[in-house]
């Protein structure tokens, strides 16, 4: 039982981390709490689902479709919401409120098109079958989610730390004015960040929909609440923090069910979170009064 619960914790943590990566990226670079990230996540899942159900495409192509659609949505998000607000130097709460509006419109549109009820991907070997090691069961999909969370984090970190564009992005996160003075294409980078973060959300949506067997218009909402907790715990805007925070929340939830009781799950998980933030208000990887990409 203990080994199985550990596997449960790590795969749930992978799910949270995957969601939190895009969320934290937008915060780190654009300094926006993007409350539409849950809607992007849902949009990705619905795109892939329609690709599979309606256009009868294989799953891999469906994931590509989800990437294209959510990347496009990310581009539009920056072009029509973040960029105009930046140009008008709106107070930083304005874009956050705008993303609430976007999330509601997206949810309502999808509900209007596809209905409020739960849908699911047709069963396939990936999610159903798995490995059996003694008492422990793990599906291939869970393994993929865990590996992908690490892989995406590694790629993002490499890109930020080792490439010219990443360096520019970090400069931008540090100071927009200084970055502009250095000749960095500030607007282009902002847009690129929005695109990448949104498509990360979309990919997470597809994988998590496969993992949980549930696609519904409000699927991003509970994930968004947990995602915010994960990002605050990890340190706002820090990529490594998103991953570690995700695994921490996953473990806290699973082990409180296993050893305290399922009615106490959220109380224990969020109590622990609160305790950590009392000790480290800036989060695990955050540095006080300093933003990072």
């Amino acid at each position: 039982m203990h080994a199985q619960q550990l596997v449960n914790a790590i795969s749930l943590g992978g799910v949270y981390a995957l969601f939190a990566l895009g969320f934290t990226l937008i915060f780190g670079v654009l300094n926006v709490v993007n409350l539409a990230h849950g809607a992007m996540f849902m949009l990705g899942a619905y795109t892939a689902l329609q690709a599979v159900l309606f256009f009868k495409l294989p799953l891999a192509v469906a994931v590509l479709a989800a990437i294209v659609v959510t990347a496009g949505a990310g581009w539009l998000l920056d072009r029509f919401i973040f960029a105009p607000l930046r140009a008008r130097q709106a107070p930083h709460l304005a874009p956050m409120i705008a993303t609430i509006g976007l999330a509601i419109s997206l949810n309502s549109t999808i509900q209007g098109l596809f209905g409020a009820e739960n849908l699911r991907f047709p069963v396939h070997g990936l999610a159903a079958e798995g490995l059996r090691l003694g008492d422990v069961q793990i599906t291939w999909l869970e393994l993929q989610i865990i590996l992908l969370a690490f892989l995406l984090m590694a790629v993002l970190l490499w890109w930020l730390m080792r490439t010219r564009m990443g360096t520019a992005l970090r400069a931008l996160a540090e100071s927009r004015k200084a970055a502009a003075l250095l000749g960095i294409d500030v607007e282009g980078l902002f847009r690129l960040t929005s695109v990448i973060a949104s498509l990360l959300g979309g990919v997470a949506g597809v994988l998590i929909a496969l993992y949980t067997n549930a696609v519904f218009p409000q699927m991003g909402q509970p994930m968004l609440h947990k995602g915010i907790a994960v990002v605050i715990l990890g340190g706002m805007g820090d990529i490594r923090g998103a991953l570690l925070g995700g695994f921490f929340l996953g473990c806290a939830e699973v082990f409180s069910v296993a050893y305290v009781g399922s009615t106490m799950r959220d109380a224990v998980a969020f109590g622990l979170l609160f305790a950590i933030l009392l000790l480290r208000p800036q989060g695990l990887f955050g540095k006080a009064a300093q933003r990072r990409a």
Partner: protein
Amino acid sequence: MQLGRVLFGALVAIGYFSSLSLAQIKIGVAEALTGNAAQYGVPIRKGFDLAVSEINGSGGINGQKIELVIEDEQGKKEEAINVFKKLIFQDKVLLLFGPTLSNSAQASDPVAQGAKVVVFGTSNTADGITSIGNFVFRNSVTEADIVPVTLKIAAQKTGLKKVAVLYGNDDIFTKSGYDNFKKALEALKIPVTTTETFAKGDVDFKPQLTKIKSSNPDAVVLSALIAEGAPAMVQSRQLGITLPFIGGNGMNSPKLFDLAKDNSDNLWVGSPWSIENPAAENKRFISAYQKAQNALPDQFAAQAYDAMYIVVQALKKVKLTGKLEVDRGALRDALPAAQITGATGAFKFRQATGKDGKPAGYDAVQTAIVMMTKGNQYVIQLNEATSRAGSTPRP
């Protein structure tokens, strides 16, 4: 004298010309047609539509046709109250059906009670709805009636000795389902190995299921709506839990076979209605529904369809005067005696008691059908109606 009577009669007829000559009986329908509860409200509306088109098609009631006034209450309390007021005071309906959710009924049914209009719920199963007053009726069977039968039959047929329980603890419907299971388990003296909970919107049930697995039960009792129940079943099979599941009314939906395809076997549920029930009335309903809607009906459509026929039964015995208050009262007085055999089997009313201990509204008396899922469909294990009529009486 004779002439005077005729003239008087003619005057009355002219006076009510507009309402009577159109000869329509206005019935209100307040259901959730949009929002999350629309998955129940929409089939309910279709059930009403089918029944009304059949009734009007065969000449109506004593020559009068039924006109439905349909409003969307969105599955929200506030909206249900607004819609009830509109139907009662503005549209002046004779009787109204709805609302979809028990939560909303608690808030809106007192409006109808206060205005002395019959409110007829076809999908409200929570305890206490009919204790609101003597104008509140429902034909939805409560889980308090169904759960003990389901559990007893499942225990007999699977030989289970102890169970684990999993339920949603933040939803009035799944929580009251759990309370009923708890009572029934105590009555049958079946011990519980562990009781686990989840919250609405949860997507990961593996920690709870792993714990359940290690407590070694013979079956899992599950009080959940299909949205959480189906993924919970899939995940339990992924964890290698092959035990039988015993579900509440929320798990009685053909949606299960979409959402938990190939992982849906061995779930026991009870309900007055089953798509597999071969009774003639049910077969006729299913084929008529399929023809009209090009889709299979569910329990919600069946209960709405039957509810309309129950009301029609009572309406046939009422002489409508055209005076709204008198007619509303007369219909209320005639309704408790209505009895039909419909898609959901034999039906009659039973008076409930109010919070003050006095007689109040009316609940349904129906027999249960216990089913088990196998190969992505429900298979009837026990039909109380036919087993009672059978030659070998059961203990």
